């Protein structure tokens, strides 16, 4: 089970990284297109879709690495007992919010599919396909938060403290 979950998070992150590479490629293609005088319809919308996929699919992986920021001033000043209670609350609240986000993202993708929504650009991509990345990313984030909640309840949760978290400022 542990292996399966970790594979899920890392697999999604690998897809997110792939989307980032594809985003780079699409921007380079549009630059090349302008220089050499060819035009790929809707390349800008594709860049947007890849951007979204890159952000959403890595949500769970980033959470597991402890790189989503939060205010830890209070948490760090508490003694172990109250700290654990507060951690449980943050995980519960987080899971609830991620659940809402996952449900309505899936609903959005489903509705786009039902109503045959297409993007406004010249590419006319059916919108449910890129929107799926948001639904999947949010759902995997929900799974990761429940995973953390269960680990915390069992007393097995390790909150990673990563140097990378310092990069964001």
């Amino acid at each position, binding site marked *: 089970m542990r292996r399966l979950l970790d594979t899920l998070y890392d697999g999604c992150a690998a897809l997110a990284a792939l989307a980032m590479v594809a985003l*780079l490629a699409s921007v380079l293609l549009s*630059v090349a297109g302008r220089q050499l005088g060819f035009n790929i319809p809707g390349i800008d919308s594709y860049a947007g879709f890849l951007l979204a996929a890159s952000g959403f699919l890595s949500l769970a992986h980033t959470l597991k690495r402890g790189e989503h920021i939060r205010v830890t001033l209070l948490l760090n000043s508490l003694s172990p007992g109250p700290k654990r209670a507060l951690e449980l609350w943050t995980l519960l609240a987080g899971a609830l919010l991620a659940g809402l986000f996952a449900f309505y993202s899936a609903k959005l993708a489903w509705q786009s599919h039902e109503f045959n929504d297409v993007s406004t650009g010249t590419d006319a991509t059916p919108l449910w396909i890129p929107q799926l990345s948001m639904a999947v990313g949010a759902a995997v984030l929900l799974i990761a938060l429940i995973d953390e909640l269960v680990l915390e309840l069992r007393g097995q949760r390790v909150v990673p403290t990563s140097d990378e978290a310092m*990069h964001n400022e």
Partner: protein
Amino acid sequence: MNELLVTTLLIVSLFLILGSGVWIGLTLSGVAWIGMQLFSARPAGDAMALTIWGSASSWTLTALPLFIWMGEILFRTRLSQDMFKGLAPWMQWLPGRLLHTNVMGCAIFAAVSGSSAATCATIGKMSLPELARRGYPDDMAIGSLAGAGTLGLLIPPSIIMIVYGVTADVSIAELFIAGVIPGILLALLFSGYIVLWALRHPGSVPPRDAVMSFGQKLHASRSLIPVVLLITAVLGSIYTGIATATEAAAIGVVGSLILSALQGSLSWRTFKESLLGGTRLYCMIALILAGAAFLTLSMGYIGLPRHLAEWIGSLGLSKAQLIVALTIFYAILGCFLDGISMVVLTMGVIMPTVQKAGIDPLWFGIFIVLVVEMAQITPPVGFNLFVLQGMTRREISWIARVTLPFFFIMVLAVALVYAFPQLVTWLPAHMKG
């Protein structure tokens, strides 16, 4: 009155949930959800999904992950190791000597990385031990590093400027160019302070290292020169209008990949690490931006930005008074929030007020970045102070004290930028394209 009560309730619950340690991006969307349920008949869930999708897939945002990735690649090259060695020979003749490597190193690295804590950590890792070995006083070495590290936010490419540009709908390219002169000004002020200090305490500055010939100096900085050229190319292409910010970022990624390949530091492992590191950092910011987009929508339904603008307008504050009030407001907010969260959280609410007061949004962006920089080096939550605490094992209060002169220099910089807005607006006005 009832409306005011509920608004207060929302703000209080926002800070309670944030303070309890719930992830910032999720908290923002949670509070937005409550606001939507209370104030509008529109189904909150559908509005959330649609708003977040719209903001997360917007083309203007594509510059952000690419610049982040570029920084992650260069972060893993020899650049950080060679920075001190490459700069030191050029700084010997200045009063204060090698202390200036902190300022110059941070200014150059800031142009590579959009983050000030990373700038501070990277430069300090090499310069602090070297400065201590040569006998430079700790307080000046650490203080100047903490101060100069904040240049990471002001000198483009800057993550926080992209975030501001997207949330406040200001051109990212213009913001970048607008940050150049204030960034150089701030670096000069820092260096000027070191010179003054060195002239007043001539006994505290250790003697100079062995003299090097011009060729030897060039050789020592051989790995810095290509990076400086890359930065010039990226910023130059934005300034001359050849490329948009996104395109310049893509070129920057390719350029830094080529640089790191030429230096021999590009391997499958470093490539993968930089890519995943960049993806995670972008993801962290994307979650906050998603929450903030929904919160801005929700606040719009409540009418908070409009009410606030009307209320502040009715106070009859002068522009200067408003700026001072906002500086204090952000300084307080900066006590417990990081810079990016501060910007996305407040922009949707404060922007109408700012525009109504006749303040140029471009100028305001640079102002916000300067104020956020100041918050980076003020306790209790100054990320740069934390970084330095981790590196030096000193008391955070001691670090904050030796940083204080540099904090006042930044206050001076804000005052200068207020008194002479041309420092910000002149260069973007002369951009082509």
